[in-house]
């Protein structure tokens, strides 16, 4: 019988399925980070002056900041002067419809399983596709427009809906929030913009698919989602990148605003290139995601399935400002080989009767390190606030690590904060039991892991839950002997 190390090696050598590159003529900004770079990006995107000024403010803040030191991993050396901050597929002319998208690009996304052609898309999902620094296509725009829903690239929103963008941009994640958010503010390229008007329930899933293709670039997209009074939207992002020996930086910002009685569900299936078995290459996924439940009885729910990236470092957060507001965070983070994840959430209870629920499932295999870090803060006005946190860690093999750092700060004596944590290993007994029913070890592990992550996967929209399940199985194939 094969021992666990042999099998772990097998999986380590597995190819990353989405590691191909697309040969497409790309327009890049000169390498380096300075004011010129920022003016170049802004000009490329034909931005108004206010947008350029906001970027420059971000850059000023960035210059004064240092990389943090509190994270539970060794900060890799990042030479931000060696990156190019803008890369876009060359376009001969402005696109009037999806039919005019470069066939090479269409083929790329077909290969990734993201058909841009509306007839072929999953029923009920509208997709915005971001390739390197720009949005290349957004489907179902017309249909959504009839309901007053705006779903377009961020660049287009800046030009077409400047009042909305100006009103909300940076209100949840300020330009000076942290060094990566400040960098993003300065050089962000594209991303998605969503506005759901009062009383509208968005009839389809909105989705953005991010693809890094070009070499020596970073990806800095920015997403802004606004759900007006009584509105509802479910939003999903997915991402992949080619296999490269160099590390690539992905420093995105997502801001969500939920007004009175509005609800936003944000789901992520993250599968950036994780690097090879020795930890060479892979994406640094340093992302700031935050939502504010501004209105009473509003709700924001984050669901993330994190399987990719060399380092995943992010804390999708919710500020519960309105009374009776509700925040949720559901996470499955899988690490293997030398991957690192330091992820979790921050929930700020400000309003009365606010509720939050945190379910985090970490799965570590190989030599990886998986950290849950979470903050639950209850303010003095947040009478009867309630939080429930459960964070579980599952270890596969004996060379990986799992860590939990929960922070709880309560300044209201009527608040209830509960925290439960468990650590377990996949048992040989469980695997043998499944073997004895005819199920081979790799499938047995996939079954056990999927069962373990069930509570989180259940939160994903159905089509994506299927994808996520597959991804979990593939990611962990062969991690146990």
């Amino acid at each position: 019988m094969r021992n666990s190390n042999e099998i772990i090696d097998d999986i380590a050598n597995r190819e990353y399925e989405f590691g191909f590159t697309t040969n497409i003529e790309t327009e890049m900004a000169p390498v380096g980070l300075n004011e010129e770079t920022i003016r170049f990006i802004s000009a490329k995107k034909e931005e108004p002056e206010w947008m350029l000024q906001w970027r420059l403010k971000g850059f000023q803040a960035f210059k004064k900041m240092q990389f943090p030191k509190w994270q539970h991993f060794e900060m890799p050396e990042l030479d931000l002067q060696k990156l190019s901050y803008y890369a876009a597929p060359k376009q001969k002319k402005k696109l009037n419809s999806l039919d005019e998208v470069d066939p090479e690009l269409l083929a790329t996304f077909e290969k990734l399983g993201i058909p841009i052609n509306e007839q072929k898309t999953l029923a009920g999902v509208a997709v915005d596709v971001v390739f390197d620094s720009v949005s290349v296509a957004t489907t179902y725009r017309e249909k959504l427009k009839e309901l007053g829903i705006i779903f377009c690239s961020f660049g287009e929103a800046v030009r077409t809906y400047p009042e909305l963008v100006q009103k909300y941009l940076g209100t949840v994640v300020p330009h000076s929030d942290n060094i990566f958010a400040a960098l993003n503010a300065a050089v962000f390229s594209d991303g998605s913009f969503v506005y759901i008007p009062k009383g509208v329930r968005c009839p389809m899933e909105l989705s953005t698919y991010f693809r890094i293709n070009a070499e020596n670039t970073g990806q800095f997209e920015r997403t802004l989602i606004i759900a007006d009074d009584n509105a509802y939207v479910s939003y999903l992002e997915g991402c992949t990148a080619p296999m490269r020996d160099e590390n690539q930086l992905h420093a995105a910002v997502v801001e969500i605003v939920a007004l009175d009685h509005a609800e936003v569900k944000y789901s992520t299936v993250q599968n950036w290139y994780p690097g090879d078995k020795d930890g060479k290459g892979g994406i640094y996924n340093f992302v700031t995601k935050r939502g504010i439940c501004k209105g009473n009885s509003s709700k924001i729910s984050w669901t993330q399935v994190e399987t990719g990236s060399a380092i995943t470092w992010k804390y999708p957060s919710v500020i519960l400002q309105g009374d009776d507001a509700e925040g949720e965070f559901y996470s499955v983070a899988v690490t293997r080989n030398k991957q690192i994840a330091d992820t979790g959430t921050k929930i700020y209870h400000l309003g009365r009767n606010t509720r939050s629920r945190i379910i985090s499932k970490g799965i570590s295999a190989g030599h990886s390190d998986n950290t849950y870090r979470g903050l639950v803060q209850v303010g003095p006005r947040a009478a009867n606030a309630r939080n429930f946190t459960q964070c579980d860690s599952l270890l596969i093999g004996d060379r990986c690590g799992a860590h939990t750092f929960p922070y709880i700060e309560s300044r209201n004596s009527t608040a209830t904060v509960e925290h439960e944590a468990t650590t377990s290993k996949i048992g040989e007994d469980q695997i043998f039991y499944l073997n004895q029913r005819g199920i081979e070890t790799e499938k047995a592990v996939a079954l056990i892991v999927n069962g373990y992550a069930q509570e989180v996967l259940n939160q994903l929209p159905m089509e994506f839950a299927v994808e996520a399940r597959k991804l979990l199985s593939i990611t962990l194939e062969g991690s146990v002997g």
Partner: protein
Amino acid sequence: MLTIKNLHAEVDGKQILKGINLEIKRGEMHAIMGPNGSGKSSLSSVLAGRENYTVTQGEVLFDGKDLLEMSPEDRAREGLFLAFQYPVEIPGVSNLHFLKTALNEIRTYHNLPALESKEFLKLTKEKQQLVDFNANLMNRSLNEGFSGGEKKRNEVFQLAMLDPKLAILDETDSGLDIDALRIVASGVNKLRSADKAFVVITHYQRLLEYIVPDFVHVLYNGQIVKTGTKELALELEEKGYDWLKEEVHQKESV
């Protein structure tokens, strides 16, 4: 169907099985009894391929194939089923999803197409009624929060679903009250057929009142020391194992 020849096995360097010989034919019901620590459960573990047991000598043929060369999953796919003494819990994995996966793995091995959901559900219903398994438990997570009795009954339900050639029931009667025992036994009896064989491992004669064996073997100190029919089980119930142990020691000293 199953031929065990001079089987020796050890665990953690300790000799547990010391030369087991046993021949099991289609349609037969064998009972294996014996005092604690005699090697009953070890025998089932070795046959199923549990990793921490090392076979040091002997061979086992399953329908002519070398069983000991096969991985545990291939033994299962070839038609060997072990009803566990302590079935494990697997949270979040529904009983039905697990069974469907298992069934289709076995079918794929035999070059059969996977069962369509509809056919699978039909089969499920049929077997669930056959062995009188609580339908509510089918959609629950595998054995999670099941009572001891429910877990044992789930083993019999799985046995019915996977339809193996040879089923080994490892102390399936332990921890069952008399009603549950009857239901489990009646389930097993319904599954008996001319082309299937059973090995029932038990401490007590009680189970054999309901599942009537063709042969009763007594395992002691890693060997089968006596073989008889169901009367032997009654005799053991009455007299205990000591007289057998003495017989063995006398033989050894001769």
